[in-house]
């Protein structure tokens, strides 16, 4: 029946995959709370995801702040509201643009790397070998990676936001003769806990989504080396989509709570 209705087939596979993902997530939580904890592997993954992404995030964040300020400045100047630039930029970056852009960058870097790594381990039957040798591959490979992604992403986002604000402050300092002290005074004048806390909370979910989808796609990859590429690619695509869905839900909830 599904062969005659491709749309139904697609929808069916979507729900099947969503169900499998949910089961995968459930297994993650189950394995998370059950000892032993692969702490060494967890730290290694933290280093790989956190420190190794730092430069990428810093450059992206800096350019983000720089470009965003340069682009907004002429319009705001037209309205005589150039003194509102720090307020506007800081709220935009901390609330929305910073977390989403950096999460997408990390989805590209971390998600694809997890997908490719686990996918290649899967097709080369390393995972099966681990099972045979008595090591729990899920605990060792998946739990550590998802946990590391969940914990590292908020830090990367905070770091990225900070660098983006420095980039913005440099533009304001050069173009608008606004001192760094005044700029950051205005930034913290504009920001409230309702901006920082929900953004930080949702960045945990972003990290979890990146780790979860990356591991899921890699862990379930098949069909040889082509499957590795597909796993890596679909990990990034699905994660990106999931990030926007999470962002929408987060904004919706934030609006309900602080609205």
């Amino acid at each position, binding site marked *: 029946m599904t062969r005659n209705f491709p749309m139904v087939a697609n929808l069916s596979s979507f729900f099947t995959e969503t169900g499998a993902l949910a089961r995968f997530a459930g297994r993650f939580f189950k394995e998370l709370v059950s000892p032993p904890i692969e702490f*060494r592997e967890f*730290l*290694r993954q*933290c*280093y790989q995801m*956190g*420190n190794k992404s*730092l430069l990428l995030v810093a450059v992206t964040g800096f350019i983000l702040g720089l470009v965003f300020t340069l682009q907004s400045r002429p319009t705001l100047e037209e309205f005589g*509201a150039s003194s509102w630039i720090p307020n506007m930029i800081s709220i935009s970056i901390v609330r929305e643009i910073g977390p989403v852009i950096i999460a997408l960058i990390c989805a590209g870097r971390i998600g694809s790397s997890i997908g490719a790594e686990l996918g290649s381990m899967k097709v080369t039957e390393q995972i099966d070998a681990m099972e045979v040798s008595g090591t729990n591959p899920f605990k060792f490979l998946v739990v550590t990676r998802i946990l590391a992604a969940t914990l590292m992403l*908020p*830090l*990367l986002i*905070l*770091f990225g*936001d*900070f660098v983006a604000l420095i980039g913005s402050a440099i533009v304001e300092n050069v173009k608008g003769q606004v001192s760094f002290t005044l700029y*950051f005074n205005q930034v*913290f*004048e504009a*920001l*409230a*806990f309702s901006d*920082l806390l929900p953004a*930080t909370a949702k960045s945990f979910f972003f990290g979890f989504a990146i780790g979860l989808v990356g591991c899921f796609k890699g862990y379930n990859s098949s069909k040889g080396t082509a499957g590795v590429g597909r796993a890596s690619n679909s990990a990034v695509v699905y994660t990106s989509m999931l990030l926007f869905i999470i962002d929408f839900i987060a904004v919706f909830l934030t609006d309900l709570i602080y609205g």
Partner: protein
Amino acid sequence: MKNSNTQNLRLGIFVILGITIFVLAVYFIGNRQNLFGDNSIIISVFKDVSGLQRGNNVRFAGVNVGTVKDIQIINDTSIAVSMRVDERTMNLIRKNSLATISSDGLVGSMVVNLLPGENNSGLAPPVKFGDTIASISKIATADMLTTLNTTNENAALLTADLLKITNSINKGEGTLGALIKDEEMAGNFKKSIEGLRQTTQNVSAMVNRINAIINEVSYKESVAGVLLSDTTAAKQIEGIITNLEISALQISNMTTNLEQVSYDIRKGEGTLDYLLNDPGAVDKLDATLENIAKATKKFDESMEALQHNILLRRYFEKQARIKQREEAKPDE
């Protein structure tokens, strides 16, 4: 192992850095909202808070001293606003201070401004924790719009009336209409203006002549000039006027006396009255004068006889010689 340690160190630095950024952000945002440090609470009750929110700034003399902690509706006309204010500024805010809500700039958020109270009854004591201070409401945008609406309605009525008036004028009704539309009146008006212009010209010429006359007056030499400009002359004139006044007074007294005299005369008192009013007196006087003339003549004759008398002749001759000598003296 060494490699793993380096990784852990780097990871540690990264994690600490990230957490530090978060903690600092929380601290600075919290500090802005006066969540840390010593704070106190002041309450003010407003009728309308104009969209004030929790976390909005509280300003004292333009300086941010706190934030709005809570907004509670007490009843339909009273809204209590609790403000978290820096403890250090509490001794500057007096109990008679006033709170007012205004907008921070044209498009800014709302702020609570604390204004010093009127200093009529000396310096009020500083506020304490939980004190309620009075509030004043500035003209809100809604009030302005209501006023503007009334003004618009009035303007509509005015324009309607104005339309009626202009219609009447166009039809030539009423005084103003006649003034604008009536050609005869316009002619008259034109003539009046012509006459007025002529008069003005005449007046102008007259003024010129007067000016010329005034210019011709020599202030130093002419009487008018001296009168107008010389202060000494003015003082002299003043003296003269004073003397004239005295003289007038004396003349007045004299006139009174003369009146009395004439009255007496008319009443028949005194010698003059006898002379003037008694007709017999003239005859007597006439006879007396005649007698005197006769007596004088006789006296002359007697004197002539005496000159020829031997006893007195020498005396008279001596007198004649002295007289002759005196008359000769001026000729020399």
